[in-house]
């Protein structure tokens, strides 16, 4: 019984324990709850980093729940695994790192941002549950287990979106919409799981991947899974819940929701690459994903330009940036069966798409946090009512500039590095796609210039004379994110070589994922 062997379980267990402890602790002392949550998520972050180092140096890890030893995947000569298994490869831990970082920073930011009096213990309890469910979705190797975590994620995030629901009606409306669409998506995922189980009698993803044939039933399952998971990630034209939910949730929750929708995106990639891989018609499915990406990019950014609500505007940008990830990975999928094009530009396109997931989580998180900082001091999200805030909120202004430059893809920030990878590789697949991606990038810059001008520039408005800089814990979280953005921008090669490339290879080479459970088959 070594502690090191149980790290995959501990990543989930520690925040889960804290989630159920926090209402109890809240009865005794309201102030400690937030610190407890931040501490638990901090532990998760440390565990994730340790696990990431282990995975990137040794190879993929498994953790079998309820077995005699955590690595015993096939007990007593069974052909397929029966227990719930966590299968963590480079891609899973890449997403796990994003989740750990974002949820930890979200909890720290909440310390000052969330009102201390009203239901603070439930808030942290739900936040921890949301983090747990995201970890679960990213680490699990059991497809039914994935469904359970998906449902936990939607329930926790809906309750958090409605956090201000007792005072105003809009958060409840947003929550209701999100709950209905995510229920449809989760139930459809369950339907697909039923099809898989009826056909192959297995629920483990690796075992499923080794027997999958792309029969008529598998096609139906794929046709259900791709749109519903793309919907959860916010792909146009199924994106309409995104601006509602993102704009009405409290700012730190919005940041975590971005990571939660990326967990669904990860699930989409996992299904397409690890489950089906080259058995499916890569060109058609690749183009479906590319078209989702194109629509998301273009409609997302053009809708963003005309928004007046700062968080709604940023939410549309979240849709548009998701389009880049879908585009990059979609191109990778379209050339997956082509042995010449794949190493030539397919892998680079996927590296761009996957790298963009991490960059997006960082700069979009930072931008939502600055929007939250503006809301915290001015009490409004309406851009028409803001102005001249750079006079009084200097740090926030700097952080906003960094975030806006990163999302618009200006060098030397991190957004440029991943977008460059996408442009240059997608260009060789189809030049038109690359050109659209660049136009979208320009429009992104244009709409952030609008936000910057109307919120920060201009003379100091009389109603905001008293406005001060936000509290230190909020400045600290934004500073951490900004430093990471600059670091990723200056040294993108370190991240791409050490984190992104292994993740992409583990998606492309199906055996890297299935082999860890089924042994040398």
């Amino acid at each position, binding site marked *: 019984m070594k502690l090191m062997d149980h790290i995959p379980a501990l990543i989930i267990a520690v925040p889960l324990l804290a989630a159920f402890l926090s209402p109890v602790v809240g009865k005794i002392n309201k102030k400690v709850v937030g610190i407890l949550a931040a501490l638990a998520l901090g532990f998760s972050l440390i565990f994730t980093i340790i696990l990431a180092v282990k995975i990137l140096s040794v190879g993929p890890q498994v953790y079998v729940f309820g077995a005699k030893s955590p690595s015993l995947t096939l007990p007593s000569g069974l052909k397929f695994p029966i227990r719930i298994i966590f299968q963590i490869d480079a891609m899973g831990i890449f997403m796990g790192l994003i989740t750990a970082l974002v949820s930890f920073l979200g909890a720290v930011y909440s310390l000052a941002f969330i009102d201390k009096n009203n239901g603070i213990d439930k808030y942290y309890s739900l936040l921890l549950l949301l983090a747990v469910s995201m970890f679960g979705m990213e680490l699990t190797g059991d497809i039914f287990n994935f469904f359970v975590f998906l449902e936990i994620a939607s329930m926790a995030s809906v309750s958090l979106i409605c956090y201000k629901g007792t005072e105003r009606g809009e958060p409840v409306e947003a929550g*209701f*919409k999100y709950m*209905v*669409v995510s229920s*449809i*998506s989760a139930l*459809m995922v369950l339907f697909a799981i039923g099809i898989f189980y009826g056909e192959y009698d297995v629920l483990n993803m690796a075992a499923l991947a080794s027997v999958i044939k792309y029969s*008529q039933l598998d*096609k*139906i399952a*794929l*046709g*259900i899974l*791709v*749109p*519903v998971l793309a*919907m959860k990630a916010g792909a146009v*034209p*199924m994106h*309409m*819940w995104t601006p509602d939910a993102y704009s009405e949730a409290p700012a730190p929750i919005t940041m975590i929701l971005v990571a939660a929708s990326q967990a669904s995106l990860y699930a989409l990639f996992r299904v397409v690459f690890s489950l089906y891989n080259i058995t499916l*018609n890569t060109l*058609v*499915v690749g183009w*479906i994903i590319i078209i989702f990406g194109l629509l998301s990019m273009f*409609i997302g950014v*053009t*809708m963003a*330009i*005309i928004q*007046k609500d700062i968080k709604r505007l940023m939410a549309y940008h979240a849709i548009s940036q998701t389009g880049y990830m879908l585009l990059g990975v979609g191109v990778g999928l379209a050339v997956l069966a082509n042995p010449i094009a794949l190493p*030539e530009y397919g892998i*680079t396109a996927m590296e761009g798409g996957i790298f963009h997931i991490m960059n997006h989580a960082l700069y979009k998180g930072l931008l939502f946090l600055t929007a939250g900082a503006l809301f915290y001091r001015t009490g409004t999200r309406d*851009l*028409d*009512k*803001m*102005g001249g805030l750079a006079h009084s909120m200097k740090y926030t202004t700097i952080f906003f500039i960094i975030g806006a430059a990163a999302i618009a893809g200006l*060098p*030397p920030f991190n957004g440029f*590095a991943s977008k*460059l*990878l996408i442009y*240059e*590789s997608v260009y*060789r697949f189809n030049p038109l796609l690359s050109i659209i991606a660049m136009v979208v990038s320009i429009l992104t810059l244009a709409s952030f210039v*609008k*936000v910057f*001008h*109307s*919120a920060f520039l*201009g*003379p100091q*408005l*009389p109603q905001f004379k008293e406005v001060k800089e936000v509290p230190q814990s909020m400045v600290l979280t934004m500073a951490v994110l900004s430093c990471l953005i600059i670091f990723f*921008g*200056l*040294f*993108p*090669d370190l991240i791409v070589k050490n984190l992104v490339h292994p993740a992409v290879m583990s998606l492309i080479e199906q055996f890297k994922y299935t082999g860890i459970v089924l042994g040398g088959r």
Partner: protein
Amino acid sequence: MLGLLETGSGFWNALIWVIVVLLIGAIVYYIRNKGEQGYKKNTEQDKPFISGNPESSKEGSHVSASHIYWGFTEALRGYYNPLVKMHTGNLNDYSGWIVIIMALVLILVGVSG
């Protein structure tokens, strides 16, 4: 080399970019310093020139968000009107889109073989 990102068709190095920007900035700063030094403070030269129109108050001169890109949205009205109308906020449409897209993808995947 540190910071060198291979993209398949070229490379990107942020450090080189930063060094180049600093160099150009230094040159610009040097040229700027060569310029005319003095101007007369507290005279007409201090004031903004708005074609002889009276200067509006500082608070009144802020352009609010709705007025930015007015020309852009006006020119693309044919694109924006249907698009905004599509975002009805009606929950029935949200689920309708999911069902439509699901049907489309099912057909595409089923037909393609």
